[in-house]
């Protein structure tokens, strides 16, 4: 169900993604993430085209964390910030973070390879149904994503929506 991927650039880290639908306690979960009970990023799945998009954001967050150049306070908030096409932190949280009314949650965990990750502990905190992470594309709001990232129809001629989104995320600090 969950998706685990090593970061080739940072071999000591592994990223695990979990996806839930029919979530009833989004408010509670958000509070737990804020006060550190859940060590992970809670993302609004309607803004996620593919799990790869999350990996790109996470890789960049770990990189900036290591060189001490993060724009936000923690690794997990940096992941959410990296997803956004703008440099406005509060807007990034509003659009890409989970909000109280959401009924689906995409959870991203960054952990050490050796460290035994207690996934069940996190799963037990979510009042919802876990579904495979690759189903995240079924939950996305393509129209909203295209509008926010300003993807014109002509750009989709030369690649997928995922390509367009990832390219903007990777280049937002210079473009």
């Amino acid at each position: 169900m969950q998706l685990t991927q090593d970061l080739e650039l940072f071999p000591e880290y592994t990223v695990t993604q979990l996806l839930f639908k029919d979530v009833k306690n989004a408010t509670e979960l958000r509070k737990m993430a804020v006060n550190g009970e859940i060590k992970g990023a809670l993302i609004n799945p309607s803004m996620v085209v593919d799990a790869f998009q999350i990996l790109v954001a996470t890789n960049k967050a770990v990189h900036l964390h290591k060189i001490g150049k993060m724009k936000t306070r923690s690794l997990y908030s940096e992941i959410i910030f990296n997803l956004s096409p703008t440099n406005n932190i509060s807007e990034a949280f509003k659009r890409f973070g989970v909000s109280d009314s959401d009924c689906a949650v995409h959870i991203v965990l960054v952990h050490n390879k050796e460290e035994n990750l207690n996934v069940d502990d996190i799963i037990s905190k979510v009042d919802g149904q876990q579904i495979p992470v690759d189903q995240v594309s079924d939950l996305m709001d393509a129209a909203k994503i295209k509008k926010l990232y300003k993807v014109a129809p002509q750009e989709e001629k030369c690649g997928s929506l995922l390509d367009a989104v990832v390219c903007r995320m990777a280049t937002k600090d210079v473009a």
Partner: protein
Amino acid sequence: MAQSNSLKACVPAYLKEAQLIKQGAEARVYRATFLGRPVVIKERFTKLYRHPEVDEKLTRRRTTQEVRSILRCRRAGINAPVVYFVDYTTHCIFLEDIVHSVSVRDHIASAQTPQHLQALVEKIGEVLAQMHDEDVIHGDLTTSNMLLVPGAEHQHIHLVLIDFGLSYISALPEDKGVDLYVLEKAFLSTHPKTETLFERLLKSYSASSKKSSAVIKKLDEVRLRGRKRSMVG
């Protein structure tokens, strides 16, 4: 200092495992896997012959310029590799690997008759016209910097532009003319007896761009004097 070196060491350790595919004067190009996908990494290494501060500035500017031009092209629907990650501390760009592609140079060299190539050069002219209409000057147009992705349908030619390392943004017909002149020189010297083919490319360029007449006029001027503009007088 020791700390910053250890922090910087992630990418070099990774590149050590990667497969070096090309080494130029400006950068090294590797092939590897990144987040589970095949990628090409372009690493602009430190030039020891330059003053460190100048070197850092130049390298940084070229890296950002390359990334910007790629994004600008893609936005306009011109095929260029997707950027996955940019590391400004080691000046590495992680790009989509265009798998199963052949360079236009190899394709032309292996073609039996020039007739097969007419559709291709027309496509090249069209794509370059589109790129120039976006005011992107490639700066290093050669047939090696264009990739062909073999597709199922023959009608549709999938052409990808690569290596925007020398690219910049300009609306001047002069710059666009020089861009075409560089291509003409490279094209005719790597592929002998292709003058008619290149003419066809230019014709297709002219037909595709609204601003082409000024550019072609400049190209004729540049042909007489060479790439560098005379500064006498």
